[in-house]
């Protein structure tokens, strides 16, 4: 197939980062979690902060994140990752504490901890994976589920009169004075992955400079919960999620970005 002369160490342009362990991730095929894990691990490797990074794992699909990151980790009670990260970062101010949460953890049960940690301006990095559904428990409706979207607990589609409106928590957090960097990214194609990596890098750089809370939302797919193939789920996400959750920076250097 390929010329074997090409496959040599000196021609290597990309390989899996060593900050990820060799464990096979338990995520469904095509799930954005794996990509986002890899981006965080690559940023940690590039910045040379593997010894200083501390991951706070949530409850949800990514509950076993500590099996995949080769950094110190702490599991948190459901939704309480920002509270745990606050304590860790205050005790070890020169370390890099980051939380990794899904929408059920960050935007539902952990709303209070999320908002107060951001409002206090804790010097932590928060990675928020938004797929609009409760993936781990079998695809129930989440606060971030789109209007009209079918889930296990809204089989006729989300109805505003019955279920209320979807929660745009990232816009909410951008209004708080404590946050320094708030952005929304996605990982469905190569260009968006590169942008998301830049945003995560920016978040960790802000933390290094002790600027305050950096919040990166990543709109991701849940092909099992949405009952689609991975490629179809990415397409559905582009057509339906992005109009409601527009991508881009919301707050840069502590100043809101005017759209």
């Amino acid at each position, binding site marked *: 197939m390929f010329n074997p002369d*090409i496959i040599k160490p000196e021609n290597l342009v990309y390989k899996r980062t060593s900050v990820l362990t060799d464990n096979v991730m338990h995520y469904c*095929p095509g799930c954005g979690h794996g990509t986002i894990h890899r981006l965080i691990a690559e940023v940690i490797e590039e910045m040379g902060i593997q010894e200083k990074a501390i991951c706070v794992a949530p409850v949800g699909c990514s509950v076993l994140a500590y099996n995949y990151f080769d950094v110190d980790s702490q599991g948190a009670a459901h939704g309480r990752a920002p509270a745990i990260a606050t304590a860790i970062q205050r005790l070890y101010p020169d370390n890099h504490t980051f939380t990794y949460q899904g929408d059920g953890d960050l935007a539902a049960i952990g709303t209070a901890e999320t908002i107060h940690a951001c409002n206090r301006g804790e010097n932590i990095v928060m990675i928020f994976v938004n797929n609009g559904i409760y993936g781990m428990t079998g695809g129930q409706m989440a606060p971030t589920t789109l209007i009209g979207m079918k889930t296990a607990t809204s089989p006729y589609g989300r109805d505003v009169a019955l279920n209320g409106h979807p929660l745009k928590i990232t816009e909410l957090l951008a209004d708080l004075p404590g946050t320094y960097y708030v952005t929304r990214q996605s990982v469905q194609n190569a260009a968006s992955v590169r942008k998301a990596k830049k945003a995560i890098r920016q978040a960790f750089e802000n933390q290094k400079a002790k600027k305050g809370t950096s919040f990166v939302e990543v709109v991701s797919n849940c092909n099992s919960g949405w009952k689609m193939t*991975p*490629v179809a789920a990415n397409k559905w996400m582009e057509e339906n999620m992005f109009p409601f959750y527009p991508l881009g920076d919301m707050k840069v250097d502590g100043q809101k970005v005017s759209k």
Partner: protein
Amino acid sequence: MAIKGAIVFDVEHCKGCGVCIPTCPNQVIAFSKNVNNKGYNYAEAVNDNCIGCTSCAMVCPDGVITVYKVKL
């Protein structure tokens, strides 16, 4: 000057999601007819048009793709 690339898949870690297939600008990747030990039809390179752009490696959720590139 021609740019040639090569991609190597970690077959046992591939879950056959196929996200890399539409990402490739030169249609290098396709599903294999064979399955790995977990029963997934893993992705494989089917021609040598690779230019080493790393797009497939960027989107791979499980990081199974290693990319090599050389200028001839």
